[in-house]
């Protein structure tokens, strides 16, 4: 009767201490921002990396997304962090997909592409969106820098077992309604801290029908509901995605691996601490109005009125959010103009996302008041998109076609909002200042963001695409 999470956990127990488990960590992904202090810590203590072969590193947060970045990065601190990553990984014998490597990209996107994220494994990264990788039926979670160091030194982490939540999504998604809308609706339903302390397993027919790309979008944003872990049971879709990837089990081990993976799904009589259901058949495209990902509503809706909110602390939060977002209650979401459109991030920069956005952009033009960026999640996504001619579709429509990286998802590299600018974004966080100081973010799917780009305002993609 164990759950998927419990089965994976039980295979990774090295030893116990009271309620704590020393969990073996099969793999760790590393990026330039949360790792320098971890390597410094190792050096100061005279320790070495226990299993360099279980690590993979990539620069993504700091990298500019414009040509010439391999030769020159103007920002000194960004350059230093990228150089430091090079030094640290080279020194330890850790594989690095460097800035010139065709496989470079956002850390949560390159791992699956390389085939290093396999069902049943434990995998961590110094990044809260590591839960993305739970889409493969793994225990994947974000850690802080101290834990990055702990894994480098010991290949383990002390963990307590989280509570168990199952979110079951059933029903066929309507046309132009996407996995992003599913996860925004789930977060709106359970709240930004509804998943705190839980591992969430996503189940149901809607999830089963999703591609790996869609499943990764769903798991990516579980942290926005407060849960460190989002999991989906591995199945034929998972195995088909993995087969033949560079680090997937070779043919001689493939059948044994699949036989093992097929034992992982939660038992039918598994126990859950909390169950949530969502009917996907009536779901509308979603957008956010506020400064928390839980502030999502159907695109046909209006900006909510804080005064109608009975809870005083929630009322105060909503007032603050509206003030920051410069929005008036009752405004139709589709009447809100945008200055920028960002199609990218570890949530929505995989090939399917770009196809969905390109389908809307095709034959249309980016609105005169809008600057729109498309940032592929990795070099491999970029190459695939170019082979399919998507780059031409975007460029012809007036979008900028960029090099892979985190880009405008966070205000760290040159791509960021100016104070007061409003952005339709396919990323995962609409926090104050997330995309640049004073910037205002509306989260939505790639198709919806493309619709906003050509409309100059938030728009219902179903009307734009009609």
């Amino acid at each position, binding site marked *: 009767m164990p759950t998927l999470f419990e089965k994976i956990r039980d*295979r990774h127990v*090295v030893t116990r201490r*009271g309620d704590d488990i*020393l969990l*073996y960590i*099969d*793999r760790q992904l590393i990026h330039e*921002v*949360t790792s*320098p*202090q971890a390597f*410094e810590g190792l050096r100061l*203590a005279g320790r070495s990396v226990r299993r*360099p*072969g279980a690590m993979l590193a990539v620069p993504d*947060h700091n990298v500019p997304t414009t040509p010439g970045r391999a030769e020159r990065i103007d920002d000194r*601190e960004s350059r*230093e*962090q990228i150089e*430091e990553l090079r030094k640290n990984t080279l020194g330890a014998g850790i*594989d690095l997909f460097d800035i010139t490597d065709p496989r470079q990209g956002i850390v949560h996107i390159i791992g699956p592409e390389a085939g290093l994220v*396999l069902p049943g494994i434990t995998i961590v990264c*110094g990044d*809260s969106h590591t839960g993305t990788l739970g889409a493969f039926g793994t225990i994947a979670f*974000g*850690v*802080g*820098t*101290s*834990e990055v*160091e702990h894994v480098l*030194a*010991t*290949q*383990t982490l*002390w963990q307590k077992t989280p509570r168990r939540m199952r979110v079951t999504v059933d029903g066929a998604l309507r046309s132009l309604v996407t996995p992003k809308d599913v996860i925004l609706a789930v977060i709106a339903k359970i709240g*930004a*801290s509804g998943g*705190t*302390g839980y591992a969430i397993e996503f189940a149901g027919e809607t999830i089963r029908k999703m591609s790996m790309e869609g499943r990764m979008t769903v798991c990516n944003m579980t942290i926005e509901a*407060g849960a460190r872990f989002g999991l989906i049971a591995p199945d034929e879709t998972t195995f088909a995605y993995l087969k033949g990837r560079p680090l*997937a*089990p*070779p043919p001689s*081990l493939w059948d044994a*691996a699949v036989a093992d993976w097929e034992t992982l799904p939660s038992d039918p009589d598994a126990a859950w601490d909390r169950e949530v259901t969502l009917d996907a058949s009536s779901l509308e495209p979603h957008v956010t109005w506020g400064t*928390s990902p839980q502030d999502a509503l159907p695109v046909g809706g209006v900006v909510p009125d804080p005064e109608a909110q009975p809870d005083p*602390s929630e009322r*105060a*939060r909503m007032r603050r959010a509206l003030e920051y977002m410069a929005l008036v209650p009752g405004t139709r979401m589709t009447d809100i103009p945008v200055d920028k459109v960002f199609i990218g991030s570890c949530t929505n920069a995989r090939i399917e996302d770009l196809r969905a956005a390109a389908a809307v952009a095709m034959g249309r033009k980016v609105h005169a008041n809008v600057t729109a960026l498309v940032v592929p999640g990795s070099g491999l996504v970029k190459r695939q998109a170019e082979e399919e001619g998507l780059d031409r579709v975007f460029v012809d429509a007036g979008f900028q076609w960029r090099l892979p990286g985190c880009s405008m998802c*966070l*205000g*760290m590299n040159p791509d960021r909002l100016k104070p007061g600018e409003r952005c339709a974004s396919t990323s995962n*966080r609409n*926090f*104050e*200042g*997330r995309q640049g*100081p*004073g910037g205002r973010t509306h989260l939505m799917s790639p198709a919806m963001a493309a619709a906003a780009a050509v409309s100059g305002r938030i728009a219902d993609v179903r009307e734009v695409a009609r």
Partner: protein
Amino acid sequence: MIEKFVPLDTVGVPLDRVNVDTDAIIPARYLKTLKRTGLGVGLFYAWRYDAEGAERPDFPLNRPEFRGGRVLVAGENFGCGSSREHAVWALMDFGFRAVIAPSFSDIFHNNCLKNGLLPVTLPAAEVRSMIDALLAAPGGKVRVDLAAQEVTGPNGDVHRFTVDPFAKTCLLEGLDEIALTLKSSPEIDRYERERKKATPWLFLDLAG
């Protein structure tokens, strides 16, 4: 290695907001450092300073009555969002040694314990009354005693809190967690040998 946690008797700084995220605690542009120190300058930057870089006088950290306070008292879901440990480093660099809130994000809570910043979870109503008391009479003292697992509010009200026993020992004694784990190296070795037999495909090294 973390500094030993000693009892605090200090001004309580109220931050009457829920869902305080780590982007608000320390904006991304301060994350370009290679060090753990010096991050206090960016703490709550967008809330402490206006667009011209002038202090916002009404923000609690800027009010003279609250300066030097080492305990922050805030609303639920404190530290949500990004895993950046820089949020903890920034709070500590600024001088904070404890944060009291009705709930914390899981990753932030972990990061606190690794660095010796004590996260104290108290019931929402108790936190509410503490924030109200601190706002009504700014400069009020809050006492935090980890050994006794007690917080004393500005009105002399005593609140018990729970803490993981192992984390408590680490905080009180300033232990190095990696050194402790390395004592389990024989078990880790044994685990790897067994796993290699059971699931050999997990040991195809990435660096080739």
